[in-house]
């Protein structure tokens, strides 16, 4: 199995690659993790990961700037329905639109806009930086064996915006930050984490190995 992590000039790709390698090794999964900026390598990959940090519009521009990448994603993720995981802004790009600074069209896979978080408690700081627990809204294979809830494992978040999901069916997990904040979305073969699995230690490595085994 070959997993393509898309390199489009955004984010801390080294740690993502290393985390996927380690998760595969520890779970005894034979997977080649390939960091690539080549559209054809993405189109032919068995599993696809879209990381991303920074601003929504910049990331979208970066993705579009890679020759043939948008088309490769269509083929692999939409037409061939191969497992896809978006991380942080990579997850936000799955939305209809991003409203950070300016309005930007997303990939349109998960209905809803990426909007600024406005915590009900004014003493809460933006960005949300740090570790928070997750409330699972419905079971999902990527959370198999992962303890969620108040006493569950923690995920590492760094963000000021979140995806306001239109269809409740797409919302898998939330976290609390002065109100419910979208933490994980999924629809069919596509999943996305607002938090950073590659930085989330126990929870993160478990989620990544679940993704490597996932048969949507």
């Amino acid at each position, binding site marked *: 199995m070959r997993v393509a992590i898309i390199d489009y000039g955004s984010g801390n790709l080294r*740690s993502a690659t290393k985390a996927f390698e380690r998760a595969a090794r520890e779970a005894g999964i034979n997977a080649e993790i390939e960091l690539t900026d080549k559209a054809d390598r993405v189109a032919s990959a068995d599993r696809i990961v879209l990381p991303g940090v920074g601003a929504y519009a910049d990331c979208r521009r970066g993705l579009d700037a890679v020759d043939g990448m948008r088309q490769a994603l269509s083929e692999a993720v939409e037409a061939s329905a191969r497992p896809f995981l978006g991380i942080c802004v990579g997850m936000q790009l799955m939305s209809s639109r991003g409203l950070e600074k300016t309005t930007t069209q997303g990939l349109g896979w998960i209905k809803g806009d990426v909007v600024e978080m406005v915590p009900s408690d004014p003493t809460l700081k933006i*960005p949300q930086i740090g570790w928070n627990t997750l409330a699972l809204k419905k079971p999902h294979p990527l959370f198999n064996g992962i303890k969620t809830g108040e006493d569950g494992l923690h995920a590492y978040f760094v963000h000021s915006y979140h995806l306001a999901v239109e269809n409740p069916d797409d919302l898998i997990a939330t976290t609390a930050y002065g109100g419910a904040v979208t933490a994980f979305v999924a629809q069919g073969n596509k999943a996305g984490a607002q938090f950073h699995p590659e930085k989330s230690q126990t929870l993160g490595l478990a989620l990544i190995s679940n993704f490597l085994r996932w048969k949507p």
Partner: protein
Amino acid sequence: MTLKARVIPCLDVKDGRVVKGVSFVDLIDAGDPVESAKAYDAAGADELCFLDITASSDNRDTIFDVVARTADHCFMPLTVGGGVRAVADIRKLLLAGADKVSINSAAVSNPDFVAEAADKFGNQCIVVSIDSKKVSKPGEEDRWEIFTHGGRQATGIDAVTFAEKMVKLGAGELLLTSMDRDGSKSGYDIALTRTIADKVSVPVIASGGVGNLDHMVEGIRDGHATAVLAASIFHFGTHSIGEAKRYMAEHGIAMRLD
């Protein structure tokens, strides 16, 4: 569910080696920052901070190798600071595996660099590191000033005004060090921490002066910081990360204990 307070050990790195040393675990090489990072990762640190204090420009590149080797082994958030003056420095650190970079003197000499960096990489990965000293006399209203060159040089810039300006320019987090307290083991400057934390919209990391675990509780509870940074208390084995986190949890602070 609540966002948890973070405990951040900080390692001073010079020419690719840890300065001051770490004596708390059976490290194969206590001078290797990566060995220390691995130990802190295993101990449950919420984040790790490297401060590069390499003086010679010849050895500047050693930090990139340290960061890269750390990122290969540790799956915890990593902030790296020291000598960050240009967009190219930030890009290299991020590519090596840093999650956030901290900007210190360049933020004072060239504030627009903070805006440029935040535009390029997003506010969330730009930490502005503020070194300040109390300059008000006893009986006067508290006033703090920015100092550079390791606390030796006054700038005349008011610390609170500077903090607000940095946030406006795009700092996603502030690392606030009291140069009066640094190394004193007498606790954070709580008045400084709270004054700035209450004024800005972004998270504040308290730094400088930790001598015992109560100081860390005070940094969060009284200083309104969202994270506490400490060095020697952990490096010399006075307390472990786990002890610190459990102690803070026992004193009513929400902590990550998994």
